[in-house]
């Protein structure tokens, strides 16, 4: 069992957790993830390790509530525990002094890109970060990313904050201005990663994306996470999650990620209809409604 030391929302539906997981904290490197399972009947889902403290023995994750498991997770509080956390999984990010590194995070992708931005900065790169969100509230971890960057551009689809537009607009502007770019890391929704790949392709800029395929074990055992790279299958959990953006077949990724849409909707609706019965299965979860009744 893994206890939640801290749990707080940092944006609507985006929650940051600190989890006691000493073995993982000791070993993890930027770009790696954990797979967690909330309770006995739950799924295993992959979440990037945003930060860690080996001394204290904890890791930080940032979760966007989009479906059943992430929403269940986001309704937990400090003091609750989850059943399984396994990791660190996947290959660490390739970190070296490239020169100028552009780190692009779309939505919760910012949380996934953040640890690598820190590592790139440490390795001596000039780090330019581009944070994107549909609207102001969805731009997350801005302060943290500023601290790790030389320059930060923020874009929102609706113009409620930063530049109105897409992250690729900001990137295109840099390219058009003749800025030297040696390396691009782009993490976010599939259409965003695909668009970044197409923006840098004509200029031959090395571009890396982190692929969010559906995973089970995370150790190379099931093959469910396979992605198509240069027409060949690779397993995102052990060969990735980072891959050369110009070689990724994004159609395959999009299709495969949509494979269980119906079941996912059903699970989410069931959860939303009766969240308490799910919460009751969480090990050590104290129902705050009951507390309220006792106190009241």
């Amino acid at each position, binding site marked *: 069992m893994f206890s939640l030391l801290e749990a707080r929302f940092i944006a609507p539906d985006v929650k940051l957790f600190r989890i006691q997981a000493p*073995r*993982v904290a000791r*070993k993890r490197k930027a770009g790696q993830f954990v797979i967690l*399972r909330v309770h006995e*009947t*739950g*799924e*295993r889902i992959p979440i990037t390790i945003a930060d860690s403290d080996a001394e204290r023995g904890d890791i930080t994750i940032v979760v966007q509530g989009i479906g*059943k*498991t992430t929403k269940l997770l986001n309704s937990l509080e400090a003091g609750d525990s989850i*059943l*399984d*956390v*396994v*990791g*660190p*999984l996947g290959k660490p990010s390739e970190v070296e002094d490239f020169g100028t590194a552009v780190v692009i995070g779309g939505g919760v992708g910012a949380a996934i890109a953040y640890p690598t931005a820190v590592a790139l900065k440490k390795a001596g790169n000039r780090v330019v970060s581009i944070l994107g969100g549909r609207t102001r509230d969805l731009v997350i971890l801005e302060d943290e990313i500023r601290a790790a960057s030389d320059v930060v551009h923020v874009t929102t689809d609706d113009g409620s904050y930063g530049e109105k537009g897409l992250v690729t607009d900001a990137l295109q502007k840099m390219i058009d201005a003749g800025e030297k770019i040696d390396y691009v890391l782009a993490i976010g929704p599939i259409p965003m990663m695909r668009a970044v790949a197409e923006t840098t392709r004509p200029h031959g800029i090395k571009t890396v994306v982190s692929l969010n395929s559906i995973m*089970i*074990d*995370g*150790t*190379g*055992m*099931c*093959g*469910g996470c*396979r*992605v*198509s790279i240069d027409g060949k*299958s690779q397993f995102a959990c*052990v060969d990735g999650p980072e891959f050369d953006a110009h070689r990724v*077949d994004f*159609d*395959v990724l*999009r*299709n*495969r990620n*949509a*494979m*269980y849409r*119906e*079941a*996912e909707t*059903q*699970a989410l609706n*069931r959860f939303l209809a009766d969240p308490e019965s799910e919460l009751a299965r969480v090990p050590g979860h104290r129902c705050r409604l009951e507390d309220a009744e006792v106190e009241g």
Partner: protein
Amino acid sequence: MSRNPIKPKERVKIPRQKMPEQDPAERAHNFQEVNLGLPESLAHTEAMRCLECKKPVCAHGCPVGVKVREFVDLVLSQDYKAAAAKMREDNVLPAITGRVCPQEDQCEGTCVLGKKFEPLAIGYLERFIADWEAESGELGLPPRAPATGKKVACVGSGPAALTAAGDLVQKGHDVTVFEALHEIGGVLVYGIPEFRLPKAIVRRDVDNMRKMGVKFETDVVVGQTVTIDELMDDEGFDAVFVATGAGLPRFLGVPGENLNGVYSANEFLSRVNLMKAYRFPEYDQPIYDCKGRTVAVVGGGNTALDAIRTALRLGATKTFMIYRRSEKEMPGRAEEIHHARDEGVEIQTLTHPVEFLGNDKGWLTGARCIRMELGEPDDSGRRRPVPIEGSDFHIPLDVVIIAVGTGPNPLVQSTTPDLATNKWGYIEADPKTLRTSKHGVFAGGDIVTGAATVILAMGAGRTAAASIHEYLTTGVWELPEPEAPSEDAAAGA
């Protein structure tokens, strides 16, 4: 001193007892166990058939040398507890082996009765004793030797690691099992389905091991969470037994393999067994809704049989196996092939898919297959399938499951540079002692042999435990004397 009142001439006239099983039409739609177990009376009748040979060759057929004749004798005297104890001398997981051993190639394959009549149903009797023991609650846990102060890590929790852990803890060592997944049991829990091996049985054995003092740590991927060197240098383990299995799925490398609806058997079976997708939505893990669909499996082994019979239970209306050799070469257990057929699985032999076809949304719609004929025998001694030119044909499909074999998981090897592997990536271990190239590290089971059987993995666990114990008590780490060099080797030197 035989307890059998019947003369051998009469014994052979008794027909082999039939295992009561769930009706095929019914069981094809549920996940309950197919075989129901012999009632005591049938077990007794079956035991009467044993000729109690002076030279019981059955034991030679068994990879761990279970003393069949002796336990049969104890069945005849209705001392089942003693029979169980006798069995446990060689085999600590009898409820499991009785169900899943390929008996026809092992103990029953060598039983003399089989020459003229049907062999003794050794697997059925083994299961009978183990289940009796469990029901009676009369399990006597073996005594534990005084603590030695030595720490041993077992990596993986399949039959090889469990057997080794059980033996080592009895010898007084402090044993911890590290497993990557959240459940203990390896293939026994994530691969072999409920209807063939109820998970409660595995759990029971694991609980017994806990009571014996074995510690279990799940969610630890050795090589990622902690390395072998860290286990030995930082965490004080004196010896490590690596038994990580052969869990890496192989694909065919044909076009269309990434279409939605194409699964590896490992994924399909893990979703259903480990994650209980067959109980969706009670459990969160989804699986493709097979109801009313056509599902095929590519392959002819136990994994293929398990996968296709699982699809049937998930509601598939048409199920078949696509196998490139003939039925004679199918490596699956005979009983399971027979069961699958009874349940309505069609077997398409001498056929192989060359391409998977899909629609514009990326979903599988069918397979282009080719017919094969058998040519010359290959390395495995089986006749090599050769494609027949121009024999392409199309099969419409909703789901296809690839079960054409597995390879070694490299996570331990790639992070342990001084652990020697062979050209396929399996760990090299001395066959007698299971010592590897790395001081204090032993390896066994599928990670050394390639995908094999439960009982062979258990045999390896036993050997490893004995060898580790010897190393821990003597402190001597040296590989056995090399055999006298052969002329070739001498000439080469």
